[in-house]
């Protein structure tokens, strides 16, 4: 762990905030998203959780971009957002379709295929 923090601490502080802070937030977001995905049963909320995980990555990218003083991270984030949007469109269409079929958004209603 010390190695991990040592790498981070070399970064130039941004108003007292170090890269570590951003990364911790990002990691927390990612974990929250993951936990949410695992614990919630509503399809829409589950989807939102994946979005949160995407955005956690986005946050990390931004922070790294600032850390490395280049714009690659930001460019990446733009594309991530695009993809997220596309996924959102897809997700919503699917969710609507499913709701029409079963009148429920409970993910566990869909467990016919198994084994």
């Amino acid at each position, binding site marked *: 762990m010390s*190695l991990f923090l040592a790498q981070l601490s070399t970064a130039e502080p941004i108003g007292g905030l170090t890269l570590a802070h951003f990364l911790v937030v990002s990691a927390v977001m990612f974990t929250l998203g993951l936990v949410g995905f*695992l614990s919630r049963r509503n399809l829409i909320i589950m989807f939102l959780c994946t979005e949160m995980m995407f955005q956690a990555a986005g946050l990390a990218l931004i922070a790294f971009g600032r850390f490395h003083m280049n714009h690659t991270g930001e460019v990446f984030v733009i594309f991530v957002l695009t993809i997220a949007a596309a996924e959102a469109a897809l997700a919503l269409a699917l969710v609507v379709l499913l709701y029409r079929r079963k009148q429920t958004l409970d993910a566990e209603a869909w467990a016919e295929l198994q084994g």
Partner: protein
Amino acid sequence: MTELLANLVPVLAQEVSAHGDGGGPAWIASVPLLALFASVLCLGALFLGVKSKLPAWIVVVSLGISFIVTLTGFLAWQGTADDSGHLHAQLIQIYEWIGMANAGSGGEAFSGFFGFYMDGLSWLWMLFVTGLATLIALYASEYMEHDVGKGYARFFAAFALFVFSMACLVMGDNLLLLYLGWEGVGLCSYLLIGYFYKKPSAVAAAKKAFIVNRIGDLGLAVGLFLTFVTFETIQYDELFASVGSGVMANGQAYSGTWQSWLIPICLMIGAFGKSAQFPLYVWLPDAMEGPTPVSALIHAATMVTAGVYLIARMMPLFLADETHLALTIVAWTGAFTALLAATIGMAQFDIKRIMAYSTVSQLGYMFAGLGVLTSAGAAFHVFTHAFFKALLFLACGAVMHGFAGQLDLRKLSGLLSMKGWGIVSLTMLVGCLNLAGVPLITSGYFSKDMILAEAFVTPNEVIAGSSWIGWILLFTAGLTAYYTFRVFFRVFVGPEHFEPGDDHHGDDDDHGHDHDDAHSNGHGGSHDGFHPHPPRMAINGVLLILALCSFLAIPTYFVGKHHGWVGGLIHESSAYVPSEATPWLHHADDDHTGDHAGDAHHEGDLVAGTILGQDPHKAMYFISAVVGLIGILVAARLHGPAGAWGLGLGSRTEAATSRADALLPRMGPVARWAQNKWYVDEFYNALFVRPLYVLANIFHAIDKLLVDGLVNLFGLLPRWLAQSLRPSQSGVLHGYAVGMAGGLVVVLVIVLVLLFMGGGGG
């Protein structure tokens, strides 16, 4: 094609040209080949369904020619004596049967030729084998006539094959060819014992014979291997030369090595199997399930003497062991077997079985003879025994043939006075006299004496307890005389009486029972309509010839200077026990000429044994005569009919009653035990067969449950694994997500641990 043949065949051609002129007449090969040819012809007759006596004539003629060829060869050999009057063994090699030509890395060259080694021993054996086989084939041509057709052809095919095998056994120039003959005669024995294959007892007896023999064969095989690794040859001439030089193939001295006692012991085990010595004798009495000619030829006269032949042939190897361990065992086993079989024989009622046990017993004599270093005596006994035992069996067979298979001595009586049975009865008497060793007039007397006397002559220091063996054999001689004449007195003389047996002739359903009318009425106890059919020409003729032969064997004892004619032949063979090996007998070459007194014992301690202080050879003439006569008299007393034929001692007036029957209860369980063959079969069954069968069943269970079970278990493992993994495929989205996330976490943990613990690499 021609190229193929050209590539494969030259090997054969070269070998023939290289070895074809190896010192003897190649045409002697026609002896086994004629028999083989006859066998093939009979087989052809079998397939073609010949329904005549043709197979018998084929066999009789070809065996007859074989005999003539053998005789011619023998006479020719007799004329090849060198300057010193010695006859050398002839080596005739036809082609290389088995062998590795080049001694490659990690192995040695070896070769087993299809070739013959003809010395006195082989000639002797071949003469009586071919001679007797011809006679017995002739006998069988009549005896087997019930079965004319498939059974008849089958019988003679196996019969001829037997002669072929026996010829290979006896004439073979190496141990491997001997082994071929050895197993070949075993096969024929198997086929012929199982001739009445519908009878489960016959099939079982055949199987038993083969398997028990195989136990002995293993000993022979191991002996063969050991001989080969020790001397790097299995060919007699080379082998005997090596043994004679006392040097093994690896250049070290042979004497005193562990092989020097182990090789004889292994060979001895082989001999025990084939010659029905304790503990492997149990198959021979059962072998009487076969047709009587078979019993006479194979299980009395020839095949069972193969063990004697083997030991006689390998005598140099036996003598090379200075401790004489194997020979001592041979002698003791022989004596013990002789006694054991005689005791059993005394208590049996089936006359063929009595003869069978008597064969075992007489074989015991021969082994004892070999053991006490009188290979000449053993060979002479083989020779005389071949005639009189064949005679006895054939006479019994004639009885069996005539009385629809009746063999129980309690149910037959007074055959001598029945019409047409005179020759059988008289020849039977000749046989009995020989077996009992009636002095002077029987060849059996002389051959037995030779063994008995030598047992006493051979010092106890050389063959441990040799004189004890002599006493045992002497006692057995008395027993032999008793049980032999027990048969004669009960069956052939006395009041006329018979009950026909359950005929078990007849073979295949598809050929007719044209003889049924002859005695089918005899079944069912009453024999009003049953007429015993007395033997005709062929049977009577053969019996007479054999009886004559058994007398003709007497003078041979007195010709030549080496214990008679047979001894002379043995002297010119590997079976000869050289005088260096018998220092106490340096005068033995001419002992019966009476010129051996006063010679100093220049070999120190070893002194020829005596019996009651007398020269055994002289004393034995009297002692054994007395013992034999006592046996006969006891038999007459217990079983003899009233009147002259009972020698005035007997009192029997009915078929089944006698003094002996009255005596039996007083003997307590001993008689019952003897009657039940000392329960040896039961003992073997309990000790070997049952446990082995149980073991086989256990193995079978293990095979199913454990070996295959493990395999199936391994087959099921993936399935079980899958069953246990299956819940993970619950179909629920969350479950999958948990799996993925959990997997990720596990992977991360592993990687981080590796990263911080191992440090290296990434």
